[in-house]
């Protein structure tokens, strides 16, 4: 489904979120300790030195001309991501390291100093002052590591897709938000990949603006049934002129990812219905494997009726 990178402040529950998500997605976590144990050979000395000095990551690996420890770190994580259905990268500047991948979701987990201090003090049975010192040192180390390796400030908001403040959010609530986002991202990637392979046009980034009340009402019906939908995520060109310019295209109103199905609403006159039917057939002919169904006025009315008196 996705590669999820988690950057976190000390005591923000970022580690707990990573563990929880790994359990839900049944996937591995690449953390700093995992990388040190598995990426740099059997020499404990090197791993220890890398743990102590971020600058060492920029030096050449002995016997490998032009290859730095940073390269090894980046390449190994990308390789594992390529081979995994899901993966969590905790810390390590994962959000910057993997920024060119389409399947990545970058999460930042934060909390107020007051909350983090309390958590650390309780967890390690230390005074609030000691907790504050632990939190501050930890944050500084993370920041320095990312700054040295990638020359970027990890507290910059724009490098993340989603920032979660755990002052008032539980790990489970955060996980639900991340999983929902990951699910949508996976669908978006799939549609984007399809549009790269055929002539259809991807406009998933557009904000859904319903053209009429019927569409808004239909979206409500789908919501009521808990059926996930996307509004006009794609346009299918269906007729071209001799120079290859698009003469006619069709953008079905709704896409239901779970059922891999496009729905076009028609509550208008019969002559438009016939036209829409023709367009739907053309899409299915020109784009094999694409399912388009027309929702007729009577279907729509029946569904609306059910809202009033639910039958079963």
């Amino acid at each position, binding site marked *: 489904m996705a590669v999820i990178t988690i950057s976190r402040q000390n005591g923000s529950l970022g580690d707990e979120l990573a563990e929880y998500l790994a359990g839900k997605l049944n996937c591995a976590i690449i953390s700093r300790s995992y990388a040190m144990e598995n990426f740099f050979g059997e020499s404990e000395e090197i791993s220890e030195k890398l743990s102590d000095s971020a600058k060492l990551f920029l030096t050449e690996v002995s016997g490998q001309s032009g290859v730095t420890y940073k390269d090894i770190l980046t390449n190994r994580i990308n390789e594992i991501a390529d081979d995994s259905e899901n993966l969590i990268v905790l810390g390590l500047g994962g959000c910057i390291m993997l920024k060119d991948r389409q399947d990545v979701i970058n999460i930042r987990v934060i909390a107020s100093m007051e909350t983090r201090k309390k958590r650390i003090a309780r967890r390690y049975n230390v005074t609030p002052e000691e907790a504050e010192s632990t939190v501050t040192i930890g944050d500084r180390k993370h920041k320095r590591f990312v700054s040295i390796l990638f020359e970027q400030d990890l507290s910059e908001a724009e490098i993340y897709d989603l920032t979660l403040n755990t002052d008032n959010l539980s790990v489970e609530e955060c996980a639900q938000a991340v999983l929902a986002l990951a699910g949508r991202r996976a669908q978006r990637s799939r549609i984007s990949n399809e549009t790269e392979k055929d002539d259809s046009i991807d406009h998933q980034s557009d904000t859904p603006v319903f053209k009429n009340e019927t569409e808004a009402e239909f979206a409500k019906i789908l919501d*009521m049934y*808990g059926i996930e939908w996307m509004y006009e995520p794609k346009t299918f060109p269906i007729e071209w002129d001799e120079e290859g310019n698009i003469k006619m295209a069709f953008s079905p109103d709704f896409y239901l990812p*779970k059922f891999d199905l496009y729905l076009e609403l028609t509550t208008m006159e019969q002559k438009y219905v016939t036209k829409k039917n023709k367009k739907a057939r053309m899409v299915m002919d020109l784009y094999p494997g694409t399912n388009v*169904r027309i929702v007729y006025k009577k*279907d729509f009315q029946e569904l609306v009726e059910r809202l009033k008196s*639910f039958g*079963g």
Partner: protein
Amino acid sequence: MSLILDDAIDIKRIVYDEEAIAKRVKELGAQITEDFRGEELIVVGVIKGSVYFFSDLTRAIDLPIKIDMIGFGNIPDTTSKTGVVKITKDIDVDISGKHVLVVEDVIRTGLTTAYLIQNLESKQPKDITLATMLLNPDRLLMTIPVKYYGFEISDSWLLGYGLDSKEVGRNLPYIAELANKI
């Protein structure tokens, strides 16, 4: 023929009589028996419409099946004007890793069936197939796995053998067409 069931319900004609229904249910039962021989099958009826079809069909399946029923309804929700659809009676038997056959009275758009499938899939059965007494293939919007159906129907208002009109008429032993929509 025009039978007046009560003041409001006017039956135009009987579409499928008791004999036709019994014959078709027997055929479906035999087909399901053949398809699931040697497999573990759980048959789930959808409350309330499927109750008579479910009862007859399960007795026509000559296999040691388990049965259960599921019900759902529209629950008012503070965040939505239309409310949300929720399971009001969930299944009690464990369906994980098992074949599940969902039994419906009628499938038109398939939206309610799609909702049920989504819900049952979260319990990780081996697979889910559908049996419905009546199917309107022209109206089917959703891509759902209808494998067994009794009769194809078109756009008419039907009653009996589980189908109701304002909760009346479910217990008629035949399927009838209403003279007009109630």
